[in-house]
């Protein structure tokens, strides 16, 4: 970097953080005619999602899919040789994907004539930021309105050296330095299971340790069991009700002390340990205490239905504005905040935010879950369609899957949709639309679904509700 970072003295709208929330808000606001300045330490927009999250992990999961399909195809009469994994090439390809996407966003920043400042920012008060460029340049920036989108970061276990070679978080795992012989995934959430699956397919012996009694906390158990049945055959071990009592980094491995429900401790060695126990919003060091904005007890910024903080000039969107910490939720909030900043009447009021776990099989759901309905003692009717026997699933050589509708018994409105099985992530969009449009079961049944596709499972599940 030869030129020193220029820090503009003022901005009409400043967007802090250029992840999915930040760049979407910046582009939308620019379209609405605001003068937008974006501040982010990376050379190009993208945030965790593009640089260290959704996109690189999906690239690795694609590799996993190829490997698994090649392996399983011998059952249907097509046998490939055992795959040879060129880690350097896989890493390079993953980086190319990330580079293409983030570079494209960088072009869009120029095309839309946004001001992009590589650096960090801190609020001095409700209308001034102290900006520090990545090269150390400093300056104050006065703004009319700000959209805060600084995202989140993985939580590390206490006592782990941040520079550790063998104990890493999702960021380290996605760097794909090598394929360890064995990998322990701490935490049975979606990040751990996705990355564990990818490493397993590329050759690692993967074990999972989860503190609670089940994988994917919050997800309906019938969906999880579809996934667990397959993971049991792929992973070396899945240890529930077990916690990590100690981690010791050795020369060639990590010695892990595991403690089960009864308090009995055992020690095992793993080449590497992936810690995926959750994410924490990046709300520290922003100078929020110099504004009227407030945090809740979990560290999220409190916002109103327009994503405005208690400080009227400042909006907050994405991971820092509360659960779920998902890119598509940030996109939706970004559009609302940008419109509100431009004086429009936008309000964030989604009926359903889809969640997708990109394991094999995938799990996806939206709206009300059965678990939530039961906890709230809410009466619902469910229609569950196992994929066994559905034409399209059989022709894919897979029949592990389930499609489930959660229906209000009185109005027959679709309250929730959940799918487990290959391609579930693509199917769930129909469920989200159904919920947003306040569709009733008869609407799903009365909609012609293409044959033979997996989407027919939604039609057939609805059809079940009308059997005499």
């Amino acid at each position: 970097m030869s030129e020193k970072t220029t820090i503009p003295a003022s901005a009409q709208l400043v967007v802090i953080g250029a992840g999915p929330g930040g760049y979407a808000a910046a582009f939308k606001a620019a379209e609405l005619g605001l003068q937008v300045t974006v501040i982010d330490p990376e050379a190009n927009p993208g945030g965790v999602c593009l640089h260290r999250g959704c996109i690189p992990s999906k690239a690795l999961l694609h590799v996993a899919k190829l490997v698994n399909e090649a392996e399983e195809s011998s059952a249907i009469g097509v046998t490939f040789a055992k795959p040879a994994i060129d880690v350097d090439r896989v890493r390079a390809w993953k980086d190319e994907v990330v580079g293409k996407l983030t570079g494209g966003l960088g072009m869009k920043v120029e095309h839309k004539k946004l001001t992009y400042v590589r650096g960090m920012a801190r609020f001095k008060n409700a209308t001034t930021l102290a900006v520090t460029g990545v090269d150390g340049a400093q300056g104050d920036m006065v703004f009319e309105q700000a959209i805060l989108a600084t995202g989140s970061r993985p939580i590390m276990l206490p006592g782990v050296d941040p520079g550790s070679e063998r104990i890493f978080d999702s960021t380290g795992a996605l760097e794909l330095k090598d394929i360890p012989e064995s990998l322990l995934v701490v935490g049975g959430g979606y990040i751990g299971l996705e990355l564990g699956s990818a490493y397993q397919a590329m050759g690692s012996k993967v074990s999972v340790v989860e503190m609670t009694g089940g994988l994917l906390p919050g997800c309906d158990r019938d969906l999880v069991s579809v996934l667990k049945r397959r993971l049991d055959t792929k992973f070396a071990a899945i240890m529930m009700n077990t916690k990590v009592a100690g981690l010791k980094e050795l020369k060639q491995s990590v010695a892990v002390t595991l403690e089960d429900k009864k308090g009995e401790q055992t020690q095992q060695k793993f080449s590497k340990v992936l810690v995926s126990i959750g994410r924490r919003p990046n709300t520290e060091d922003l100078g929020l205490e110099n504004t009227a904005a407030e945090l809740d007890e979990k560290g999220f910024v409190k916002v109103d239905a327009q994503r405005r903080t208690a400080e009227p000039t400042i909006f907050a969107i994405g991971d820092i504005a509360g659960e779920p910490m998902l890119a598509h939720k940030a996109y939706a909030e970004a559009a609302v905040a940008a419109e509100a900043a431009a004086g429009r009447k936008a309000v964030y009021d989604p009926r359903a935010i889809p969640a997708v776990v990109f394991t094999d099989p995938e799990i996806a759901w939206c709206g009300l879950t059965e678990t939530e309905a039961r906890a709230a003692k809410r009466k619902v009717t469910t229609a569950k369609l196992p994929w066994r026997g559905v034409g399209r699933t059989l022709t894919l050589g897979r029949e592990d899957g389930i499609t489930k509708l959660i229906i209000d018994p009185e109005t027959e409105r679709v309250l929730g949709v959940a799918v487990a099985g290959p391609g579930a992530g693509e199917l769930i969009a129909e469920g989200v639309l159904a919920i947003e449009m306040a569709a009733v079961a008869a609407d799903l049944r009365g909609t012609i679904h293409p044959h033979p596709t997996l989407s027919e499972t939604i039609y057939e599940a609805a059809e079940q509700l009308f059997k005499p």
Partner: protein
Amino acid sequence: MAQEIRVPEVSDGVTEGTVIALAVAVGDTVETDQTLLEMETDKAVVAIPSPFDGKITTIDVAEGDTVAIGAVIMTGEPTSGGAAAAPAPAPDAAAPAPAAAPEPAPEPEAPVAAAAPEPADSPAEAAPAAAAAAPPAATASADEVDLTTVRDSDLVAPAAPSVRRLARDLGVDIYQVQGAGPGGRISADDVREFVRETMQRITGGGPVPKVSGEFPGLHAQRPLPDFSKWGPVTQEPLSKVRSITADAMSYAWSTIPMVTQYDKADIAELEAFRKEYNRKADPAGKLTMTAILIKVCAAALKAFPQFNSTLDLARGELILKQYVHIGVAVDTPSGLLVPVLRDADRKGIETLATELNETAAKTRERRISPADLEGGSFTISNLGGIGGTAFTPIVYAPQVAILGVSRAETEPVWDGQEFHPGLMMPLSLTYDHRVIDGADGARFLRWICQAIEEPINLVMKG
């Protein structure tokens, strides 16, 4: 060469008007600023001037047509040399506006919140404290959203995102709309039906009247009988002045609890002075009793500031005006109009008399500009010239008091020992009882009477 003539901007908030008279015909030669037609807007009758010297080639409107600001009304051929390219100049002295025009805009002199400081270009210029106090223009726009209608519940209203957005734009709480679709699904039509039904309930089931007042619901009208059963009738449309007066009066009558206080002032000495003065005065400066009363009332308003106020129940405040602008009701052929004399407390009676004569004449000829009908802080209605012993004027909202004046008569006055003849002028003061107590009403009117009887009081107390 032909140039279009369009309706120019007339006044803030005016978007259209009705052509009431065409002043030219096709083929007429016109001069710049010559009146082409008269248009009645809901604020005033406005003369549309010619933007150039030239000849009218077509006329695209007829009397009675409604035309929008910016619409083409005529075309013409400017004679060369005219500044033809320029858009039509603003209409000069617009004709009168209705007396009882409800004031849609804040009064110009009202202490409008200091304009939000524009964030400066350099940090040095931007005082952070000041900037922080003033939310940027964009956030403070009129497009406020009612966030209380956004509910975080799983019993969400069954409406598609587009329908929810429509409801939000119309200011409808989607949770109050009853959906007609399967599962109670709310369609865009359901939202519109909800708005229609709500409006009908407010307006009593009749056709929705065209309203300009704050509380359209107060104009509910019961069904009228068929009068032709009892004899022949004719109908004529309400003029703009009449409908605005009706709106303002019914608003005031139905929202303000009013009390009228009566008193009399002996004006014998004042009348003698006035007649003597007028013998020598130039007709333009002719002194009227109304002009004297303007001065007296201005002094009274300084002594009793609560009479120069407006009640803001929404904010829970009494707005006290630091200026004294007196409105005077003027009877014109097209209805009652109330032009306003500015800063009456700072002007002598001579000046006020001249201004009043000029303003009244302009008003009767409907040459008064809409701006001169706005911003009054108190009103005087003098019917003494016509007669009558007393009447109860109606407070002209958002003012809080009005003074009615009736014809003075010679009456026996008991001075404690004997009767002597007094020239007694009946005064009636109607006030907003929410703001003004009865005792203060009586004191205020007494103060006026004493000032009239012994004008030295004006200087002593005022």
